[in-house]
């Protein structure tokens, strides 16, 4: 469509965001995603009200908040709805605390990844030529690197300095973020290429708008819908990666995460199914929520799929 107007600027009637929201509302899967994510956000925000025990709670005489008795690997009961793990932690409470960690990792790593991918995608798509070539080679390089292995190495280094792996969560966030941009940057670049070809960009170039202005006032808003979708899906992916790391025992053992519960439970699969099953269900549900939300947003925002 060869429009001279910036399509994101509101014209008469309803804006494109209102239209998107209307389409989104009609899509039950998308609404389900929103509800799931909303539910988990609630749990994450009010975890201390929802969870009956403090995090990493092992009852000792010196710990007034942590009641009950030392009882590892107990099956689900009234006192412990999801049972207890090998440390005698209440699995239900640990799973609830895991929500906040999951959001922290999801949003943190995604923020890092998205900042990098926006900068690289915009620059490569807009400036083209050698800049594009160089950045795309760099992207290819990052796609080849065995990033998961490197992540494990970094965390191992951390363990040398702190025997509980404290601070590991932040390192995971940073590294997951720094290695997750290539795919997203590529998609953004091709979107920028598409938008750059539209006439209104050419028009603003001709009236002498600066590259900065064009990039951030005109191009960015027009690829925003893609960015939103990629962000949502990246959150899901980041949560999954972190869970994998913790499952292998390389995670931050001071923070209750779902992956860590897996690590604790893995050696006792045949004795205590509950230690693995409940965190797994929560993890799957949250990831599914973000995936549903991302797909719903894509259907609602991407005009090419509009039918």
């Amino acid at each position: 469509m060869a429009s001279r107007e910036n399509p994101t600027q509101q014209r008469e009637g309803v804006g494109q965001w209102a239209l998107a929201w209307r389409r989104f509302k009609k899509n039950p899967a998308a609404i389900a995603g929103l509800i799931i994510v909303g539910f988990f956000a609630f749990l994450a925000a009010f975890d201390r009200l929802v969870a009956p025990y403090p995090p990493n709670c092992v009852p000792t005489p010196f710990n007034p908040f942590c009641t009950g008795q030392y009882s590892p690997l107990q099956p689900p009961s009234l006192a412990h709805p999801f049972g207890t793990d090998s440390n005698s932690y209440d699995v239900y409470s640990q799973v609830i605390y895991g929500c906040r960690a999951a959001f922290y990792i999801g949003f943190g790593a995604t923020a890092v990844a998205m900042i990098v991918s926006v900068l690289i995608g915009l620059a490569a798509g807009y400036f083209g030529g050698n800049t594009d070539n160089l950045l795309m080679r760099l992207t290819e390089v990052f796609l080849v690197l065995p990033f998961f292995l490197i992540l494990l190495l970094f965390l191992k280094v951390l363990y040398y300095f702190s025997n509980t792996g404290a601070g590991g969560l932040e390192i995971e966030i940073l590294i997951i973020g720094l290695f997750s941009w290539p795919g997203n940057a590529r998609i953004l670049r091709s979107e920028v290429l598409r938008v750059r070809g539209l006439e209104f960009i050419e028009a603003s170039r001709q009236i002498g708008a600066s590259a900065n202005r064009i990039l951030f006032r005109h191009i960015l808003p027009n690829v925003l819908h893609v960015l939103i979708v990629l962000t949502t899906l990246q959150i899901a992916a980041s949560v999954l990666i972190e869970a994998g790391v913790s499952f292998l025992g390389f995670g931050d053992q001071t923070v209750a995460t779902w992956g860590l519960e897996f690590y604790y439970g893995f050696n006792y699969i045949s004795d205590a199914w509950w230690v693995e099953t409940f965190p797994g269900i929560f993890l799957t549900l949250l990831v599914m929520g973000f995936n549903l939300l991302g797909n719903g947003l894509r259907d609602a925002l991407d005009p090419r799929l509009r039918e």
Partner: protein
Amino acid sequence: MSMTKYLIRRALYLVPVFFGITFLVFSIERLAGDPVKLLTAGQTRVTEEQRQLLRQYFGLDKPVYQQYLLWLSELFTGNLGYAYTTGGGAPVSTLIGQRAVATLELQLLGLAFSLLIAIPIGVMSAKRRYSKLDLAVTNTSLVGTSIPIFFLGIMAILVLSAKTGGLFPYGGLESISPNQYPYGSAILDQLWHLVLPTSVYTFAILAPVVLLVRSSMLEVLRQDFILAARASGLKESTVIYKHGLRNALLPLLTYVGLYFGGLLTGAPITETVFNWPGVGRLFVQAINNLDFPVIQGVVVVITLMTLVANVITDIAYAYIDPRIRLE
């Protein structure tokens, strides 16, 4: 065809990548601790002098860059060095060689099965867009992409494995003693051990492939040449498979090429779940034991495998898409 030219160009920019990644790994791992200390921990009779001797023996007393250069020069003669502890100090190439077979067996089988299952499902789903079948396929796939492979694996173990009274062995390549072979056959025993990991692996990577086949099929099916093929009176199966699928395979190929690397990197998780003696578990063990030569070796081998997968993809791409051939 300028295949050689392409390969040379490819190699040219990958050489610095190779040096970069190996040097990175080389320097990071040395921050993770002193392998000699770990090795001799708790052994009160070992003196500090003996430790120093051991460091000299491993070459750990030299500056990092010298160690790196030494390692590189050995690498170019095809020598990946010797493990500190793993396999009783076996050559790294031997260690990796044994494990790589197990890793590739699982990865390639899983990939092949998932493609075999996913392609017809994706095509059917795209063909009947918005039908109940399509809805079921997309929603199931969405759930599928959300289940982490280790959760799926653990659930499979809980329900199906011998560990909890089920049918299949929960892990490992083969039974420990020949007495446990089903019908006394070693081959059957290995197949029997493959069932659970391969199925879980197949299902874990199935969903994204289904969605990708579906979406690229949808993209292709609305092209004019499909309409033209249909208007020429061609059979529907010819339209869908000969013209549709052949074109839809192109993005799938890119995906497989790219993600094969990702799958290899994810091997530590899969292999840990199924106690599968592959490269991934070797890596985890090597990190925990600070067995530097093994860590380096695995990184080299996995990077190379990824690169080879990419090159194979590119060549296959040029074979399927005539538009690439001219470049």
